[in-house]
């Protein structure tokens, strides 16, 4: 079991125990995660590194409730998400998790504003309440002047910042980032990492990030290495 205490005096936010995840591929059983246990404190900034196929993204998907483990349990902020049904899990995700993907995954026919507004459509907020939240999120990522731009009118770095705004707009408990700098040039990647760092430091967000990029991983407080579905090494840096 790895205890990834990202923040000083942190309180445990995620508790994963004996996670196994296997897939059936043809006649073969693929064990992607094997007996993985992990604790993550609130306010932590974790980077998962490891070779392709080591189970990083699978772990992130399990922790974010996008997938369910073959066995084992995960609780986030006291919610046992592995015991939840599909629809409960969706509702939980809407409330507690923000996702940032490598390819940004913005909806091309919606403006930056409308993309960021998407998670808020699921809330009881009215139009003006949503506007307030969206503007705040876009300001936080430094794009208040791009809210009416479509994704095709933005650079890769700007698109990713819009995606981060979408991830944080509903004020989730947890931010999960899968290769957030994987498709960006160095400068944009630095900007994005700087932004994620600020979200942790200034806004107390908990971020779990999968990355192949050592420079991106350096920004995290803790780096965990996965190999063949198990955590093999934990690195810790000062906040």
């Amino acid at each position, binding site marked *: 079991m790895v205890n990834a205490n990202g923040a000083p005096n942190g309180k445990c936010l995620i508790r994963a125990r004996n996670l196994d995840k296997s897939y059936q591929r043809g006649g073969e059983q693929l064990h992607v995660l094997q007996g993985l246990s992990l604790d993550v404190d609130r306010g932590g900034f974790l980077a998962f590194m490891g070779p392709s196929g080591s189970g990083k*993204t*699978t772990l992130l*998907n399990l922790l*974010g409730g*996008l*997938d369910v483990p073959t066995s084992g349990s995960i609780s986030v902020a006291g919610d046992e998400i592995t015991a939840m049904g*599909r*629809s409960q899990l*969706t*509702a939980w*995700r*809407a*409330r507690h998790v923000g*996702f940032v*993907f490598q*390819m940004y*995954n913005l*909806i*091309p*026919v*919606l403006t930056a504003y*409308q993309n960021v507004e*998407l*998670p808020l*459509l*699921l809330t009881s907020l009215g*139009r003006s309440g949503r506007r307030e939240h969206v503007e705040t999120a876009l300001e936080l990522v430094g794009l208040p002047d791009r809210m009416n731009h479509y994704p095709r009118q933005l650079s890769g770095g700007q698109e990713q910042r819009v995606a981060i705004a*979408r991830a944080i707009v509903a004020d989730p408990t947890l931010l999960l980032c899968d290769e957030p700098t994987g498709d960006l040039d160095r400068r944009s990647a630095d900007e994005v990492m700087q932004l994620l760092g600020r979200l942790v430091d200034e806004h107390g967000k908990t971020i779990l990030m999968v990355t192949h990029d050592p420079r991106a991983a350096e920004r995290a407080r803790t780096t965990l290495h996965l190999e063949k579905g198990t955590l093999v090494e934990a690195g810790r840096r000062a906040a």
Partner: protein
Amino acid sequence: MKYLRLIWVNLARKKIRTALTVGSFAVALFLFGLLIAIRGAMNHGEEAARADRLVVINRASITRMLPISHNERLARIPGVKAVVHATWFGGVYKDERNSFPQYAVDPEGLRAVYPDYLVPEAQWSEFIRDRQGCIAGEVTARRFGWKVGDRIAIKGSYMTGVFEFNLRAIYTGARSDVDTTHFWFNYAYLAERYKGRVGWYVVRLADPGDAERVITTIDEEFANSAWETKTQTEGEFGNYFAKQLGDIELLVLAIGSVVFSTLLLVSGNTMAIALRERTGEIAVLKAVGFRDGQVLRLVLAESLVMAAAGGAVGIVAAKAACASLSGLFPGMVLYLPSGELAVGMVFALGIGLLGAGFPAHAAMRLRVADALGRV
């Protein structure tokens, strides 16, 4: 309401595809509407028929005439309230293409037998007074731009010569399915030419329940004479003509089935392609918290909007086509009953739902982790 934008942007992202799909629904509903209208027109005699009218024709064939002396004998038969005789004229107004039904009638009988043709009292009086007077239905009058008082010259077809009529009245229908394409003139004007013969009689009954007895009485009255009759209710008479054109119901059903089946495939295919292209976006929606049911409803709503838009366009086009075609074919009243239009619309919406059903279900069941992995 807040999801309307999502539905709209998804429809607007591939405008040509959306327009073509909406167009498919429009064409289908247009065809459906037209078929219904044609079926209605074919069965018009039967549908618009009143239960209290009988048609009396020559037993040998409708093309053979009957003597005008039958008029009085028919009027004397117990249970007969009124009688009118009518004789086909079939002339040409200016051009062969300008065909419309023209009949020589007994004006007094016409009014007594056909209360569903509405004529202003003053115009009726003028018509009665004028031996060369005529009445035209509003569709025909509108078609040729006629006004009351116009002089109309019609060239005879089987009767040589050009005959001039004074338009004394324009009639309207008491109901929307009343044929307003007819042109009637006073029999007296051409009585000499018809030589005491008329085409057929229409009898109005005092009691519709008495039809069977009166039919038998009429035909017995003229049995074993040189002018035997065949009497039918107006509905049977109309149906007889419809049957000459084949089984319209079967035709409508067959064409309608082909059209709607094709539409189902088109709409299903369109939605399947559209959703395959948006797999990643659907995964993102679900990742941010859209529930399965919400995704399902969004997809179905898209399809329903296309079906509704196409259906509405098709119905409007069918109505316009019916309005403009109504005057072109003699005796053919093309009208779209609201009930049947509603059925067509329900069909279109049903097909929209059914076509999108499978892709929408697939979108609903989409596993986010798998879908994001494919993107």
